[in-house]
């Protein structure tokens, strides 16, 4: 009788929809927070200082480690959202969550407690990369094309999107008898007692051809690695969504 009343009452139906929307909103906020924690764990463990400090964001390791470290979790969540509900939002959900969390965490912990200026340790953004990869999935709706073009969409947009923020810090200054970038001088000036300069793994390695431009090969290399990461972590995301994990045994 009550069910019949709900079915026939437009007001109750409307209210039911509103309640449903609210539950859906809360559910996605909880899911977003959960995947943010996972993304933060994998990304910060893998990328570490390259994500943290302005004088670590170089042309060689930053575009490679930045892409790889984020893609692990983002691809898995993308796979889960797509397989379960055909929602091309997994990457963007993680990317927005981790970006907000990183700004908050660095502001509270590193500025609030230790006084490091935020311009030394603001986080990179992968939201444009994530939206691009989600769009590739939506438009192609094919796994192979998503692996190929999604990985490259992510990798190719990563450095240009962050260059807007880090370029001002690459202007030259004369300090300590040599030419430094502003980022180098900030790293020197705001002392990191536990991170001596020799730990700063930047700009070293091979890739000395291509007219000295290490950035291009680094970006394309991260795209190639990204394809394999896509394949592996899509499979992991797929496995995680299987009902077998919640079945009674």
């Amino acid at each position, binding site marked *: 009788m009550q069910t019949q009343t709900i079915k026939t009452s437009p007001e109750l139906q409307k209210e039911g929809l509103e309640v449903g*929307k609210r539950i*859906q909103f809360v559910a996605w906020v909880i899911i977003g927070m959960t995947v943010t924690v996972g993304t933060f764990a994998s990304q910060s463990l893998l990328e570490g200082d390259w994500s943290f400090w302005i004088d670590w964001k170089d042309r060689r390791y930053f575009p490679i480690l930045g892409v790889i470290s984020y893609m692990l979790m983002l691809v898995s969540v993308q796979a889960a959202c797509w397989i379960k509900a055909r929602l091309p*939002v997994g990457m963007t959900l993680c990317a927005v969550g981790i970006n907000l969390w990183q700004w908050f965490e660095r502001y509270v912990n590193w500025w609030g407690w230790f*006084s490091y200026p935020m*311009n030394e340790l603001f986080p990179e953004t992968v939201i444009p990369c994530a939206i691009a990869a989600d769009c590739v999935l939506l438009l192609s709706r094919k796994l192979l094309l998503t692996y190929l073009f999604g990985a490259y969409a992510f990798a190719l947009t990563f450095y240009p999107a962050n260059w807007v923020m880090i370029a001002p*810090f690459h202007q030259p200054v004369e300090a300590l008898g040599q030419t430094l970038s502003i980022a180098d001088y900030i790293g020197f000036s705001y002392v990191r007692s536990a991170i001596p300069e020799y730990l700063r793994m930047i700009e070293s390695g091979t890739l000395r051809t291509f007219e000295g431009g290490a950035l291009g090969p680094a970006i394309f290399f991260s795209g190639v690695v990204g394809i394999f990461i896509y394949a592996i972590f899509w499979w992991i995301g797929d496995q995680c969504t299987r009902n077998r994990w919640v079945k009674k045994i």
Partner: protein
Amino acid sequence: MKIKNHYLNILILTSTVIIAIIVSSHLYASGIGERAQEAILRMRTAQFYDVRFSSNHLKVGEDLVVTGKVMILPIWPHELGFSGIGYINFFEPGPRLIRKETVVNGQPVFSSMIIKLGDTYDFKEVLTARRPGTWPVGVTMNMKDIGPIVGPSIKVTIDPSSSPFTNTIQTLTGQTINLENYGLSRAMGWSFLWVVLGIGWLYYWLILKPTAPRLGLAFLEKEDELVTKQDQRFGFLFLAIVLVLVFGGAFITSKQFPIVVPLQKTFVRIDPLPKEPTFVEAKVSKATYYVQQRSLDFDLIVTNKGNEKVYLRRFQTANVAFLNPAAPDNQWPADSPEVNGGELQITPNEPILPGETKQLHVKAQGAAWEVERLSTIYKESASRFGGLIFFGDAAGNRNIIAIADQFVVPVFQ
């Protein structure tokens, strides 16, 4: 039962308040952790001496100058490994002071240095007070593959200033910038733009579209109902916006900042200090650590090759110094940041005459061995010690002899 719960609540609340008070009173470090390091690190690798801090009380914006020397002992502990790369660093709990300059052997140094065994590095660090408070600060020699070797430290009190702190520098393109906040609003604005766009994308899919029915439709593989033409047009539009913003933004940025340099990475070769004339030779022949008496005793064979009588004035290891009271003008300096280990007892304690060779028995006894956690030398993988012995004549000439890799035998009774 209710009464019990009431008491339990009070107990939990009281405990929480007490813990909060204890924790909040130790929010900031009260030391720089030197005692936490193994004795082997502090005694047998690098030895700081003559370290001076220009002041222990500053106002925001005032300079602190730290000077001193650090000697890399000529024999490096085998179990630690020697990388040959070092970095003179400043220890503080976050950048309460900013570093303006580091000079080593007269050369300005930005990066790590190539370090040689047996060499001495004369350093100067200039810092500017930035954050009010009382902070433990000190110098360290960071050695690659080993970590920081902690030098002497003091507590610096920084008082507030009426003018806000700025850290300005002029770029080679002629722009004067304040490093405290340079580029921050640009980074925040760009990040915020992408957060808004990201939320817009999520809003379309997660708020405007009910999720629950999609789970069922996806299970039934009803693709066309799940991804419509409108969705794809929306996706195409978003992709276009992303690409235009990313590459357009990067292009405009490259026009805004046409002159940029990559991050700088290099190691610096430091010219050695000029050799000082040597007028004393000394060698440790036997060393014993008396555990109960907290005393390190060693025999020293000394030859005075100079023309003046010399005194053994000081023995120093791991920032703990023992002074010989019999040497002239050898009082403990008031501005010394090192730990005063006590009197150095020398037998016989007469000066060594020119041309004379004699054996001295040196006794460095004091609670500092325990307090500074150096008495563990006999518990480590190699029971050895290192340090510096300072000889001097009446004219103020000084010779420093390094003890490195010296066996020490413990006596437990």
